[in-house]
């Protein structure tokens, strides 16, 4: 098992390097001059040149990339003398627009996104798989039909629509849940956990409802398919009760493939749920990405893209390892 993990980690690092370079190249090819974006209307060529030098945009591309990579473990100093400033390691660059190190901006945005992702994941896994298994067991009956209707509705409604609907009904009309649009800001989970929880309910529900449908459909199909396998017949022939057959023999095999889906969905959420965060005003990675794109804040956009890529790559590795844990046939491969 350990060599397997080490090998996967090595692959992962190589892929991360390649991905980061690709992202760097793409952003360098954009028709924006990052130095020109650092000063406003009353700009002089001298200021632009000074900023260009200070932020390192005058260096050759490969050198710029190397400085970026170096910054990840060594931190990075910008300029010299009085105007100098430092982004400590791990440095993801400096946003001239926000007058802040990118790492700090990401760290400020991450908790909201992480909270959203964990809650949403728990909700759509339990709701989705629970409903899927129920539908499979009650195939053709009312519960199954209900699940089918749910799947159809949830897959055809986009998350921004569901989000707006929930916001309108439960927050604005009924006032059951607060929203962070009211100007009160976003509460911290450590200081006001209850307030935080109430604000998160609707975003969780939005992502949970929309994503659960895929899990319902997939787990229903899986349970029905695995239910016809010979080894399930063997289990019944042993005299095992139907409940245990389902729990021990069907579900384990049926839900193993869902690991991939669940981990990649989680990775996607960690990268930032752009629509949901924007609708509910959550100060997370998705909203940071939207704001940075609107402001053409290239260092932040670059960093967020890289982080999203890194999360997906790590998630893939986690999937491989979890698969090996669940399915003995995958071990020693």
């Amino acid at each position: 098992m350990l060599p397997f993990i080490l090998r996967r980690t090595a692959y992962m690092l190589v892929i991360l390097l390649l991905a980061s370079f690709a992202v760097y190249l793409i952003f360098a090819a954009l028709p924006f001059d990052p130095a020109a974006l650092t000063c406003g209307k009353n700009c002089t060529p001298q200021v632009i040149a000074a900023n260009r030098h200070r932020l390192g945009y005058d260096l050759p591309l490969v050198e710029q990339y190397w400085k970026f990579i170096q910054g990840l473990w060594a931190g990075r100093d910008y300029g010299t003398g009085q105007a100098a400033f430092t982004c400590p390691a791990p440095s993801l660059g400096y946003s001239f627009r926000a007058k802040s190190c990118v790492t700090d901006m990401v760290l400020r945005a991450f908790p909201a996104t992480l909270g959203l992702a964990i809650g949403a994941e728990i909700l759509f896994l339990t709701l989705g798989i629970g409903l899927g298994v129920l539908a499979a067991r009650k195939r053709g009956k009312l519960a199954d039909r209900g699940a089918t209707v749910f799947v159809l509705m949830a897959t055809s409604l986009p998350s921004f629509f569901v989000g707006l609907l929930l916001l309108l009904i439960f927050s604005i009309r009924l006032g059951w849940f607060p929203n962070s649009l009211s100007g009160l800001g976003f509460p911290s989970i450590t200081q006001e956990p209850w307030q935080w929880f109430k604000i998160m309910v609707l975003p969780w529900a939005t992502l949970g409802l929309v994503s659960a449908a895929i899990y319902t459909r997939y787990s229903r199909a899986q349970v029905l398919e695995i239910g016809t396998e010979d080894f399930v017949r063997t289990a019944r022939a042993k005299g095992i009760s139907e409940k245990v057959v389902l729990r021990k023999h069907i579900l384990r095999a049926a839900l193993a493939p869902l690991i991939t889906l669940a981990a990649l969905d989680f990775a996607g959420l960690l990268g930032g749920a752009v629509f949901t965060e924007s609708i509910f005003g959550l100060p997370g990675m998705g909203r940071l990405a939207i704001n940075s794109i609107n402001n053409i804040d290239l260092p932040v956009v670059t960093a967020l893209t890289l982080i999203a890529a890194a999360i997906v790559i790590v998630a893939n590795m986690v999937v491989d390892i979890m698969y090996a844990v669940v399915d003995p046939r995958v071990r020693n491969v």
Partner: protein
Amino acid sequence: MSSPYLQVEDLRVAFPTPDGMVNAVNGVSFSVDKNQTLAIVGESGCGKSVTSMAIMGLHNARSAKISGKVLVNDPAGTVDIVSAPEATVRSLRGRAVSMIFQDPMSSLHPFYTVGNQVAEAYLIHNKVSKEEAFERAVTLLERVGIPEARRRASNFPHEFSGGMRQRAMIAMALVNNPALVIADEPTTALDVTVQAQIIGLLKDLQQEFGMAIIIITHDLGVVADIADDVAVMYAGRVVEKADVREVFYRPQMPYSVGLLSSVPRLDGVREDRLRTIPGQPPSLINLPTGCSFRARCAHSELVAGGACASTMPELTDAGAGHLVRCHLDPATRARVSSEALNREGAHS
């Protein structure tokens, strides 16, 4: 004299489908006692496996309509599998009546170790600890001839060869010392060399444990090797049933004759082609009136009054418990049979 361990009486199994009722089993009766082996033979779709699943009570009540009786003479009292509540049937399943399936690869759970799966079968029906159940599993795995059984018990099915997997399946079936084992084509998925070993193992185990065996197969070599009695099935009915020697040497129903004469032989006249039975079995949705084998039978014109087309022949005793379902008179049957088998004046 006590009644036999398993008695199947007028078993009927039908599956409702959008095209109509599929009458898979149409009034099958037979019995098996401990230490006895009954072979059920017939081509694909004749109802062999459906019958065995009905004996195990494994048909889904929602998709199968079952009638008749499957009486299991359990020491705790006779149980009719067809009408008994699910909990009663489940307490027999795997304990008193167990089953060995055709494909040991797909019949073992890929995610659990072999020892675990054998132990599970023991654990369900016995109040023992997991460790004790595992010990029992190791004992059984050893008994069915798995080398280094203790170490191999913690292997997964994919780490076993086909023959070893089938041995493990047999260990699982025998772990509770059942009174009846149903083996549904236990050798079909195995190499020829392994097939004989598995059949030999089953015979040894029967000597040791004294259980009744129902073996379902279309391999007549296996039948000759292991069976005491043979029931030939066609289109969901038993068409001939007798002692194994009777069926092999004096088959009387034209279908059984056809089955036997399609076995390639090393003695006698060399033929260029293997013999076959022409035609297809009838659709089980609209079974024809009269004899279901009529359309493929070369001898129906020998029966007076077109009885083959109008009435289904009854399963009647042709002497010494040799049951035959055929309108032909005994003398004609004997002639037809010996001609087909190239055995003029066959003796047992």
